[in-house]
């Protein structure tokens, strides 16, 4: 039952050893599964995953997904048995989850396929609007819709994406204008070049000399250089507007909707080549944004532009989890500055020196060739940002004197009770009170240093310290918990006011249809009055609360 522990303390899921029972032994599985789960999800995170899956995919998928998150890797029949769902529905749910990259499968010994949920990936669903908005700021509406389609569908072929996005853009354009496929393709290629979309692992084309029965599941492969390779397609065409007969009011049956099968008859040129949104690249972009705005706040606009340039130059060359970027020479930076910026070389050098000397150590000097080689210390920068966030949270929660104590302990690393009172110049009683408050909320922790081997409390030093990593993790966990609470609150509010919401929707629909058919002002007025003033008030409050809860998320 011993599972080897990885370096980070996460247990590795290894192939079962010779002594392990087969996968049918359900009595031994829970312990093994529990070992694997040691550092994955807390209860609050599981609850949040459950709410997200339920909102996006329905209850059946939620049940299967949460079960997999709780119990780790399991084969199909065990899932069906443990959740009490029919095999058919489990298969469908798993297909949906695999399509959206939330579950992966692995073939184990004896041909058993096990399914494992990607817990952190489920939580990323919270950030979908941010990803889409980022694509909008970088690549305008076309890019925004491409990323949106990829996120909504999990994986898609390039031709499918281009067609769908062209159709959607054509809808929004004026009558008579259509969106050309070529333009959408260009944006797609640009997204691939900057690594915002990437290819999914694919089934390798095996020669048919493989004897024996086909494997129970395909092994999907992808290598680095293929990940951003756009297939040579000649996509010619324009977006199509939906026929106006399909655009019925919401209450009428969409009986005239054309059958879906008509489009599938054409051969797809890039069949089997699927693309997905590269979430890590977006996270890298957010990180860069954070660093640039931090520098702008601390220093000035020009220095932030310099840092932005440096980050842009190392976008593709530096892996996302590197501790610092590749060294960049001052000359290179000067050449890559944005066109509008005309600062002289000396001024640039002065700025770089200033940045490198700053105690925050965002930028470091790594050499003198090429006018000075500079790197951005990514890990240090992120650490500083995390620390700043912690400080700000302490300040907003407990007040500025607490924040002073917190910053003091951060700076001095370990402090005794007496020393805290002395350095912070705060009276003893208050200092004690504040320290204990922060201790109870786990922002500060105690470090014991025994003087004698029997750890007698009267002869032990107790030092206050801030463990940044664990405090940050605690804060993150708290955020997830708040989001889960907010979603529940929003659902509650919506349910309570369901009748009112439906009524207002109906009234809006009636008004819209009447306006379309040219009604008089008086009639419209009459219909609007169907919702009484207190109801309107209630609606407003509801909208505000719901928006607030969504906004906080």
């Amino acid at each position, binding site marked *: 039952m011993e599972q080897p522990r990885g370096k980070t303390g996460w247990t590795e899921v290894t192939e079962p050893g010779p002594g392990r029972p087969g996968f049918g032994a359900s009595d031994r599985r829970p312990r093994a599964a529990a070992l694997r789960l040691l550092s994955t999800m807390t209860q609050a995170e599981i609850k949040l995953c459950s709410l997200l899956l339920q909102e996006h995919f329905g209850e059946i998928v939620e049940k299967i997904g949460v079960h997999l998150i709780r119990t780790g890797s399991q084969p199909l029949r065990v899932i069906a048995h443990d959740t009490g769902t029919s095999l058919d529905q489990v298969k469908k749910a798993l297909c949906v989850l695999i399509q959206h990259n939330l579950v992966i499968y692995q073939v184990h010994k004896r041909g058993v396929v096990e399914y494992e949920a990607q817990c952190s990936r489920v939580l990323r669903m919270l950030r979908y609007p941010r990803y889409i908005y980022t694509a909008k700021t970088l690549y305008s509406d076309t890019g925004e819709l491409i990323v949106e389609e990829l996120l909504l569908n999990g994986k898609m072929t390039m031709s499918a994406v281009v067609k769908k996005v062209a159709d959607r853009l054509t809808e929004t354009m004026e009558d008579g204008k259509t969106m050309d496929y070529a333009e959408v393709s260009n944006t797609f290629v640009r997204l691939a070049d900057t690594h915002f979309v990437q290819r999914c692992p694919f089934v390798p084309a095996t020669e048919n000399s493989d004897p024996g029965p086909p494997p129970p599941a395909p092994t999907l492969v992808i290598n680095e250089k293929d990940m951003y390779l756009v297939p040579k397609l000649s996509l010619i065409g324009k977006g199509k507007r939906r026929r106006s007969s399909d655009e019925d009011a919401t209450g009428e049956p969409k009986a005239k909707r054309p059958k879906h099968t008509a489009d599938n008859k054409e051969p797809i040129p890039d069949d089997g080549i699927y693309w997905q949104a590269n979430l890590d690249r977006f996270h890298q972009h957010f990180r860069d944004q954070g660093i640039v705005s931090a520098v702008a706040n601390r220093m000035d606009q020009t220095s932030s532009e310099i840092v932005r340039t440096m980050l842009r130059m190392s976008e593709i060359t530096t892996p996302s989890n590197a501790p610092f970027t590749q060294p960049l020479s001052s000359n290179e930076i000067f050449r890559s500055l944005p066109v509008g910026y005309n600062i002289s070389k000396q001024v640039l050098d002065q700025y770089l020196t200033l940045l490198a000397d700053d105690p925050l150590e965002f930028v470091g000097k790594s050499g003198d060739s090429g006018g000075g080689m500079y790197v951005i210390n990514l890990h240090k920068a992120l650490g500083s940002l995390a620390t700043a966030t912690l400080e700000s949270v302490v300040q907003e929660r407990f007040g500025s004197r607490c924040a002073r104590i917190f910053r003091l302990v951060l700076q001095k690393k370990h402090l005794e009770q007496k020393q805290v009172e002395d350095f912070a110049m705060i009276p003893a009683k208050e200092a004690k009170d504040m320290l204990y408050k922060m201790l109870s909320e786990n922002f500060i922790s105690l470090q014991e240093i025994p003087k004698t081997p029997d750890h007698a409390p*009267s002869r032990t030093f107790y030092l206050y310290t801030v463990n940044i990593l664990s405090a940050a993790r605690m804060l993150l966990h708290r955020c997830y918990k708040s989001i889960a609470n907010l979603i529940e609150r929003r659902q509650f509010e919506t349910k309570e006011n369901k009748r009112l919401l439906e009524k207002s929707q109906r009234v809006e629909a009636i008004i819209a249809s009447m306006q379309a058919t040219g009604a008089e002002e008086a009639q419209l007025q009459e219909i609007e009055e169907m919702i009484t003033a207190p109801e309107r008030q209630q609606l407003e409050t509801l909208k505000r609360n719901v928006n607030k809860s969504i906004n906080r*998320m």
Partner: protein
Amino acid sequence: MAGNKGRGRAAYTFNIEAVGFSRGEKLPDVVLKPPPLFPDTDYKPVPLRTGEGEDYMLALKQELRETMKRMPYFMETPEEKQDIERYSKRYMKVYKEEWIPDWRRLPREMMPTKKCKKAGPKSKKAKVTGQGTSLTNPADVLKKIEELEKRGDGEKSDEENEEKEGSKEKSKEGDDDEEDDAAEQEEYDEEEQEEENDYINSYFEDGDDFGADSDDNMDEATY
């Protein structure tokens, strides 16, 4: 740690000064209940971030939630039957496109099992019952008798009659049953056949046997 409790004055095992209370000072009261669920905070939270970006993302979020519900990936739970079927329900159904995953990328066990795959005698019986709606009844009954001979003698007479009546029902209903899954069809058949009779299966079906059996028994006890 052996402490001398009860002997002499209570002495702290640790240095009380370190914790912050001077000797002899009144210690704070022991709290006997859990802290309040929503304690009053001295410092109110910071106002929400607003701005063009945040507004756009808010609208996006709401739109995404609505869109997700209409996608084919959203699996609806089958609703319970309502007492009265509302006319408007028919028109409020959202027509969703069917999504077919790329089977080449998925494990083979993911594919839905084909209908009527089972080659057991049970499914054959169900298939025959289903197909029987298109054949004439006598031929149908003959076939079924053959099938039943394979199954066993005990239930033969009962089943025969049940199936005859069952097939009559089915021919009225039409071909709908053929399209059901084999297992479901079989269960449906059995249930329908069971429901259709008001009589419990364990009772005799024909009146003939009853008389004969009882006569046999009565012969023995004639007083």
